[in-house]
Structures are given as structure tokens and as C-alpha cells.
């Protein structure tokens, strides 16, 4: 028995002597907030899978830290007509399987995104009519109609080029072993545990890659994510929750990199989707405006998120050149809110059934909204719902007010059209205003930034009155990392680009 105890003690000592930071020096361990879904750029849906793709699959274009579109697998581009985009490709680029990346591969990948059954890219590029191979390093993309957001789509998954040979061989299982032309190639995936990539020696921009391996580890609990960062179990966490930011800042071995995010939080109102829209809130925009006036967004953000997020009144990030500076959040004005309710002639209190995702911070947001709006004459009744259920319910119109978020897109069309156009696929409240529809369509056809911004400014004037969506705050990308990590450049889309990133020993 004594011998057994001694052996157990020895084992424990030997085990406890292991340092968590035992991994190889040039392996960067990145914590993700959830596990990625399928690693096929055509079929993937989740935000975190985009983070993995940033190491795995290069795109025709990328974004720089100013959110400008810059060539990646493309070398240059030109709009020869408003519907014809000619792209010159980078020469001597090979896929992870050694196949050459050329115009035919680009044509194949884009058509795969457009036509493959179950593709989630189709709606992003369905303005595309066909892709023509001009020569081995030139493609011509022909659109059905002019589309200013189209190029921006090619900076994300719709612009990722896969190896046609590997994709043909694997079919729908391509995501189990993806083959692209990114800086790292796929090694293994243990679902819910890790995704491992290793440096691709033939990468076209190999000088920019300093790391040997990258491991992505899903750690859903934010406290555990923070603990891992503090203990050296990971090197970089793609998302630190605002309440954990002081702990990271106080730790001399860690640092925070903050940047404006494209993502934002809203309250979507059901204005015309089924019987649940038949409420004072759903039918009368004055009631919705009164609701907005009853809220102090600044106090809300201060209490729940330590004031780290910026309040907003629009879907376009301040980091975007399309941001409309004149559209500012309203100051809280309870008297004006009460006056609006009186003008609307509704019986008080106005009952608002509000669906809130069932997580601690958003439940707290719901409670604060309840308390603030209560002072103006609203009786906010909260339903905390698991997100997948809430989303389905919203889709069916089974909601009155829904606290929801959007990760944001670099082109404002991706934040507006789907939500505010009467035919928008994310327009859960079924808001429809012909003027807004026309402006959204018009903006798609205008190429220059100031021109589009002016159209959006005009559209916001209308949506501010109708208020189908109440914008609350703009999120921030809060990346926590070890001080050993250097060379990381934050971009508002929140992706972890590995070019230039290195790890000190």
C-alpha cells in the first residue's frame, strides 16, 4: 500500500512539474469562442471558421487595417464595364497539394461557391452571371447587373480559391481535409478540441510567415479562456469579454489589442411578420421611437460592458469609410418619450415582450432596458431564450422585440440590404418601405464611396423615423495575447491574420 502511495505521489509530482507552456516555441495557440463548423469555404457558416480560414485559405482580395481592399491571390483588377471585372492573378501560386493556382482554378472555385448544393456563398455572389478564363492568369467575371458590394465579397469566403482537384475528389467532404493556397496547410482536426495547421513551405508570400504551426482551440467559457491565457495554456484569445479586459491589462505577461469591430447589437422589432406584429410597438413607429428615447445607451454600455463599446445609431462601423457621421445616437429623453406615447394615443403601460439571448450579459442588458423603458411607460417583459431557438422564432415571426447581433460586413450592403430591404433574407420583422428599398438598390449600383455614403445617409433619415431596428452599440474586437506574440495587426473584421506574426521564445 505504501509503495502504491509513493508511486502515486511520484506520478503526481512528475505530472505537476509539467509546464502548460511546454508546446513548441513557434506553435501559436489560438483560443476560439466556439468550435468552427465545416472547413469548406463554400459550406461554412460560422464566424470562427472564418478565423481558421485566415490561416488556411487565401482569397482573391484581402482587407488591410484601413479596411481597404487589397489584392491577395489577385495581382490587380479593373472594371472594364460596370458589369465586367477583369482580374489578373498572381503567378507561381500553388495549392497545398502542389497543384497550380490559375484562372481555371479561380473559375472552378467561384462557380462552386455559386452552384454547389448547400452553398452559403450563393447569396453573396448571386449577382455573378459567369466567369471566363481569358488566359492562364486572367479571369473575367461577368455580373448580371452593376454591383458595388461585389468586390468586397471576394475579400471573404466567396473569394477563397480551393484546389479543383482536391475539391472534385472529396465532393461535399472537402471540408474534412481542405486544400487551399493559404500560408498554412491543414494537418488535423479533433472536433471540439483542436484544429492544427502547419506552415506551407511553398506559400507565395512565405517570407511573411514566421510560425511553424498554429493550433486553434475552441474554449467556449470566457473565464476558462482567460484562465488559459493567464496560465500560458494559449498564446492568443480571439475574444476577451469586456469585464475580463482589466485582468488582462493588469497582467504584465499579457496585452490587449483593441480595434473597432464591424459587429453591432440591435433590437429588431416585429412590424409586419404575422400576428405578433399587431401590437402598439409593431404598428406605430412613434411607440418605437418613444422606446428608443427611453433608453440611455451610454449607461447601458457602461454598466454591462465597462464602457468599452461605443453607442451607435447605425449599422455601419466608425471604422468604415461608409460610416455616416451625422447619424448619432439619441440622448435619453423620458419626457419626450412620454409625449410621443401620448401622441400615439396608446394605453399605458405599453407591454413589450422582448426576447433576449440567454447569456449573462444580454440578460443584464434586458433587465436594464426593462428598468429604463419602464420609466417612460413601457412594461417590458423579458423572455431569455437559447439563441438557436430565438433565431427560429424570429424567422417565424414569433417575437415582438428581439435583442440580437450581427458580426458585420466590410461592405455596408451586407449590414443593410438583408435587414432593411423588403426582400431581405434577414428581415425578420418584415419591414417594408419602398423608399428604403429603392435607396438600397440604388446604392448597389453606385461605385464611389461618397456617393454611396450620401445614399445611405438619406436612407438612415427614413429608417430613423420608421425604426424597424434599434441600433444599440458597436462592438470592439478585444484580442488578448501573450507579450511573446508580436507582429499582430488588428483589422476590424476581427480575423486573425498570421502574416508577420511571430512568437518570442
Amino acid at each position, binding site marked *: 500500500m505504501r509503495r502504491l502511495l509513493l508511486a502515486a505521489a511520484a*506520478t*503526481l509530482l*512528475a*505530472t*505537476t512539474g*509539467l*509546464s*502548460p507552456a*511546454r508546446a513548441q516555441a513557434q506553435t501559436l495557440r489560438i483560443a476560439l469562442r*466556439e*468550435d468552427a*463548423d*465545416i*472547413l469548406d469555404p463554400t*459550406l461554412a*457558416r*460560422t464566424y470562427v471558421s472564418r478565423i481558421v480560414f485566415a490561416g488556411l485559405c487565401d482569397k482573391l482580395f484581402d482587407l488591410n487595417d484601413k479596411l481597404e481592399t487589397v489584392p491577395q491571390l489577385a495581382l490587380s483588377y479593373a472594371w472594364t464595364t460596370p458589369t465586367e471585372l477583369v482580374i489578373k492573378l498572381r503567378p507561381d501560386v500553388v495549392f497545398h497539394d502542389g497543384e497550380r493556382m490559375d484562372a481555371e482554378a479561380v473559375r472552378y472555385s467561384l462557380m462552386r461557391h455559386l452552384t454547389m*448544393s*448547400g452553398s*452559403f456563398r*450563393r*447569396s453573396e455572389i448571386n449577382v455573378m452571371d459567369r466567369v471566363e478564363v481569358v488566359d492562364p492568369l486572367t479571369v473575367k467575371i461577368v455580373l448580371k447587373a452593376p454591383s458595388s458590394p461585389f468586390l468586397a465579397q471576394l475579400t471573404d469566403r466567396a473569394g477563397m480559391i480551393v484546389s479543383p482537384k482536391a475539391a472534385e475528389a472529396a465532393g*461535399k*467532404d472537402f*471540408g*474534412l481535409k481542405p486544400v487551399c493556397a493559404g500560408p498554412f496547410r491543414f494537418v488535423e482536426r*479533433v*472536433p*471540439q*478540441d*483542436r484544429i492544427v495547421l502547419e506552415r506551407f513551405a511553398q506559400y507565395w508570400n512565405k517570407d511573411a510567415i514566421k510560425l511553424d504551426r498554429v493550433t486553434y*482551440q*475552441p*474554449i*467556449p*467559457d470566457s*473565464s*476558462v479562456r482567460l*484562465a*488559459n491565457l*493567464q*496560465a*500560458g*495554456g494559449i498564446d492568443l484569445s480571439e475574444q476577451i469579454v469586456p469585464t475580463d479586459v482589466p485582468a488582462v491589462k493588469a497582467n504584465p505577461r499579457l496585452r490587449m489589442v483593441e480595434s473597432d469591430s464591424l459587429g453591432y447589437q440591435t433590437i429588431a422589432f416585429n412590424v409586419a411578420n404575422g400576428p405578433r406584429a399587431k401590437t402598439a410597438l409593431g404598428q406605430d413607429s412613434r411607440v418605437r421611437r418613444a422606446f428608443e428615447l427611453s433608453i440611455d445607451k451610454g449607461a447601458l454600455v457602461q454598466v454591462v460592458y465597462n464602457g468599452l463599446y461605443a453607442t451607435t445609431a447605425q449599422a455601419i462601423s466608425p471604422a468604415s469609410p461608409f460610416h455616416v457621421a451625422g447619424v448619432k445616437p439619441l440622448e435619453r429623453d423620458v419626457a419626450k418619450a412620454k409625449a410621443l406615447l401620448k401622441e400615439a394615443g396608446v394605453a399605458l403601460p405599453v407591454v413589450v415582450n422582448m426576447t433576449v439571448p440567454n447569456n449573462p450579459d444580454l440578460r443584464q442588458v434586458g433587465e436594464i432596458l426593462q428598468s429604463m423603458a419602464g420609466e417612460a411607460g413601457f412594461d417590458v417583459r423579458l423572455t431569455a*431564450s*437559447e*439563441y*438557436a*431557438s430565438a*433565431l*427560429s*422564432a424570429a*424567422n*417565424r415571426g414569433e417575437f415582438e422585440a428581439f435583442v440580437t447581433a450581427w458580426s458585420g460586413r466590410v461592405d455596408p450592403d451586407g449590414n443593410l440590404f*438583408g435587414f432593411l430591404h423588403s426582400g*431581405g*433574407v*434577414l*428581415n*425578420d420583422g418584415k419591414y417594408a418601405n419602398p423608399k428604403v428599398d429603392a435607396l438600397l438598390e440604388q446604392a448597389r449600383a453606385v461605385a464611389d464611396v461618397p456617393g454611396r455614403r450620401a445614399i445611405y445617409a438619406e436612407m438612415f433619415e427614413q429608417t430613423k423615423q420608421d425604426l424597424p431596428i434599434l441600433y444599440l452599440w458597436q462592438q470592439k474586437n478585444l484580442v488578448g495575447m501573450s507579450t511573446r506574440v508580436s507582429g499582430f495587426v488588428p483589422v476590424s473584421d476581427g480575423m486573425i491574420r498570421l502574416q508577420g506574426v511571430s512568437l518570442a521564445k
Partner: protein
Amino acid sequence: MRSHLGTRVLQVIPTILLVSVLVFALQQLMPGDPAVVLAGEERGDPVVLAQIRSELWLDRSLPVQYLHWIGGVFRGDLGFSWRIRQPVSELILTKLPVTLQLGGMAFLIALCIGVPMGILSAVYRNKPLDYVANFVGLAGLSTPNFWLGIMLILLVSVQLGWLPPSGYVPLVEDWRQSLATTIMPAFVLGNAIAAVLMRHTRSAMLTAMDQDYVRTARAKGLRESRVVLRHAFRNALVPVVTLGALELGTLLSGAVLTEQVFSIPGFGKLVVDAVFNRDYPVVQGVVLVTAALFILLNLLADVLYTVINPRLRTA
């Protein structure tokens, strides 16, 4: 004996079938349309929703969906994960050893803590040691796994830097690192069971210690340690072993939370993630395999009882 065994084996098949129907039916009660979840940003597009429903057989009637699934199960095909497209059987085979290792270690820890504590508290009944053991036992029972897990991570990993805070390394890959990653979750998981084992060992020991054969043993002049361990404990062990077997269920359900906190890629985490993502084939597969394991373990226990207890053989 043989006919008893035969009857029990025959009972397994309808039980598993019933479980499969229950799993399938209960899942339909989950709020949230899987097609909407899978459609993501295209959830408002009826064409996309129809396409997903058709591909995953969600547009057929429930009996047809069930028969399609169970037919596959009989052919050894549990389907594939809707989220990552990996075969469910492959996922289960990867995850099962992880949870078995975690559960095994947790049970060992529970035994090592619970049984000696139970014996000591019975021997030193109503003495300070008994009170301490009872307090520790009560604390173990009432401490939520996730809280204890996070506290241990903060203390052992963040403050002391002794163990990795989360993750998992397979035993075959690096046994030392594997132990390092699993010892803390195994302790958290074993802690609550240790408390239950301690309470039951204590009461079984107290009953045994009052028996005549213990008094006789003492009268014979045997050493107290021999009386306690050889005579009282052996007899107290029977209900404790039964309870231990029952607690295996608690272990598996406890693994759901513990694996979540420590990011251990086991069965528990697999099923939780699958539920949140409405990945029905994974949920169905995992629950069915777990139920089958339970039923088989029960069958094994029945067989063992007949081996141990000759009176059951004629039943």
C-alpha cells in the same frame, strides 16, 4: 441460468428500440428549427431552407425520418454530423475513450477519497474526525462542478501554474501530459461521488460495526485495524459496491458539465455542442450509444449477480 441470461439478452433489443424512438421523438420537442440554424445568414430564404430540409430528410414525415435513421443504425451507419459532416460513429469512437478515461480516473479518485473517509468517520463516530469528514462530504455534495472547476483552474493553473487549465492529450500520445490535463477535471467529477460514497460507506460501516461478529472479533482480542478492515469493512462493502456501480451514471452526466468547463473533447461536450447547434444525428447517435452502454452494463451486472449469488441461478 442459461434461460435467464437468454431472456435478459432478448429484453435488450426492444429496450434499445424503445430508447431510439424516445430519443428521436424527444428531439422533435426541442424548440428551434434545425434548418433555420443551419441556414445561418440565409435563414430568411425559403429556397435555401427547402434545400436544407430536402437534403437532410427534414421535409419527410416523422415516421419516415425515424425509419431512415434507424435503418442506417442497423446497417452500422449513424449518419453524419450536419455541422462538420464527419460520420457520427467516427465522432463517437474518438470521444468515447476520452470520457472513459476521465470517468475512470474520477471514479478512482472518488474511491480513494470516499471509502477511507467513510471508514474513518464510522470508526471515529461523533468525534472531531467524524465531523470533519461529514463537513467535507457535505461540501463535496453541495459544490457545483462548474464552480469548483473554475476555482481550481484559477488556483492550480493561474496562480500556481502547476497544471494546464484545459485541453486534453490522449494517453497514448503522452501519458504524463494526459494525466496533467485530466487530473483536475477528474478530481472535480470524482469529488461529488466521493461525498456520496463516503456517506454510504459510513452508514454501512456503522451498521456492520454493531454486528455480533464484530463484537466477537474484538472479544477474540484482534487488533482494531483488523476488526475494522477485515471484518466490518468487508461486509459493509456490498452496498458500497452496488452504489458505486449506480454512480457511474452520475459520472457520465457530470462529465457533460466538467468537460465543458475544462474544454475536454469528450462525450459530454460532444452532446452539449450538438444540442446547441441542433445537430440531430450527433445527439441521436450519442444518446443511443450511451443508452446501449448502460443497458449492456446492467446486463453484465445481472450476469455477475448470478455468478456471485447462487440463489439467483434457479430463479
